[in-house]
């Protein structure tokens, strides 16, 4: 089996919740592949990302299996996971402001990461850190080493987070909404950067996002989730042009288009999520 990641019948429930957060999710990921996970809020996409990282909170119970290169992630102890973290398995989170420690300069955080995992002297780690800041497009990287996260913009902070996620050349990166907090022009630049670095290093990525545009442009395959279940898995072209599941189609129809005005706001856009409203149109004949 040459799958880097194999997820089988994964279910996760949080204590006290009425229904499982994710139920019976299975998929495989090959080395070098970028797979997208798309869904609306409450679809379980973030929980899936946490499960793949072995970061489920204590109040979550789970079933099934998540195998990363033959190692079981689900239920593994911190001790077992530690050698994988950073060097094999890494993550890019949504909000860079909370991912970085406000009390330490960004330079010292990158240096600490590099020295923790690689056998480097302070000077070597420092020059490697500067090199990474440069690679993720931060101007004057030497000067920025001494900056604190509050002195940098959101886009710059996200670049730092990306540098830290990729600095150890992990084989798999789980990115949960990596660009959702960014302005659209900054997002475009950061997406380009992620693609370049992932492709350059031959890493694989699971890209979790609600943004269909990001999925269409970044991924080779897509997993569509709703209410904790996988509705559809397919090649990106098939999902966008021949969706099999009605919900996928609905999601695509809901995407506002700026490229043509020929797509009028259709009355068929009833959301399953907004049952009350669609019921209303029947009751009142009001659209």
């Amino acid at each position, binding site marked *: 089996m040459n799958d880097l990641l194999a997820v089988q019948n994964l279910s996760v429930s949080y204590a006290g919740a009425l229904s499982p957060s994710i139920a019976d999710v299975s998929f495989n990921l090959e080395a070098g592949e970028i797979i997208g996970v798309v869904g*609306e*809020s409450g679809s379980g996409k973030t929980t899936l990302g946490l499960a793949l990282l072995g970061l489920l909170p204590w109040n979550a119970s789970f079933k099934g299996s998540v195998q990363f290169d033959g190692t079981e992630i689900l239920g593994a102890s911190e001790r077992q996971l530690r050698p994988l973290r950073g060097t094999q398995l890494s993550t890019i989170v949504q909000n860079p402001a909370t991912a970085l420690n406000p009390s330490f300069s960004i330079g010292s955080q990158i240096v600490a990461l590099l020295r923790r995992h690689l056998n480097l002297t302070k000077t070597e780690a420092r020059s490697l850190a500067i090199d990474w800041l440069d690679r993720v497009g931060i101007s004057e990287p030497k000067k920025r080493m001494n900056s604190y996260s509050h002195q940098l913009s*959101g886009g710059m902070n996200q670049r730092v987070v990306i540098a830290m996620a990729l600095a150890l050349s992990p084989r798999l990166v789980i990115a949960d909404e990596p660009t959702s907090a960014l*302005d*659209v*022009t*900054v*997002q*475009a*630049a950061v*997406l*380009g950067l992620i693609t370049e670095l992932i492709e350059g290093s031959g890493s694989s990525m699971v890209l979790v996002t*609600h*943004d*269909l*545009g*990001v*999925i*269409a*442009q*970044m991924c080779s395959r897509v997993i569509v989730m709703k209410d904790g279940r996988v509705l559809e898995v397919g090649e*990106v*072209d098939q999902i*966008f*042009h021949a969706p099999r599941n009605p919900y996928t189609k*609905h*999601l*695509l*129809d*809901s*995407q*506002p*288009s*700026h*490229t043509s*005005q020929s797509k009028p*706001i259709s009355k068929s*856009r009833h*959301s399953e*999520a*907004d049952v*009350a*409203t669609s*019921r*209303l*149109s029947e*009751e*009142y004949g*009001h*659209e």
Partner: protein
Amino acid sequence: MSEESGSLLRVDVVRKEYYRPGNAGALRWRKNERLVAVDDVSISLARGETLSVVGESGSGKTTLGRMILGLTDVTSGTIEFDGLDITRRLPQQRRQLTREIQVVFQDPYASIDPRQRIEDVIREPLDIHRIGTRKQRRERVLEVMHQVALPERMSRFFPHQLSGGLRQRVSIATALVLRPKLIVADEPVSALDVSVQAQILELFAELRRTTSVSILFISHDLGVVREVSDRVAVMRHGRIVETGSVNQVFDQPTHGYTSALLSAIPPADPRLPFQPISYSD
């Protein structure tokens, strides 16, 4: 800027400056830095028209909206509403203006009083302005609920019983209940899931088609404004870089920044190319 006589709102070289402590340290107030949030902006809005103001974070779009609402003081320039100078509004003017200018905020979880029932939330503006009898107020509430497609049975619900999309409908109903001439909607769909967002956009598009209310639609997302607006103004660093009809701005943008902004939206179709243009001035 066009000098339409029929314009409801005219914003004329309006400026907003903020002062913030300089890098020298928070206590050295004399070294304050001046920040121009809105830099001599002029826009006009006709009756029944929807104008979208689009810009990235820090472009000044929200400050512009707040000045029109009277929530932020104007540094210089004039705002004229319905032929009246409202740049510095008097207390008695303020009360009248809240009847005529209403607002819809971004986050319907934060902008609705969680302890009021939906009908009370929507009716409150009528109570405050003492409009109509109790019965007439109740009828008006049901009327706007119908207009925004909220089922009548939800009038006794509390906000926590409603989803984000339904809550945003409540906000819009509350904004509509006084029959205002202008609604300022600041990012009304950005907190919503894409399928719910589509429904709220549809509601805004319907308001544009069927009512005479003017709407100032503020958004960071060029992608969502096409379907709801007549005209679009693109803001950057406090200035309006381009204004025009929807078709003009989207299909033949004249400013490099507008093109960059449009090209930065990843197309939701893997067959379409994604080639963001970079822009710097």
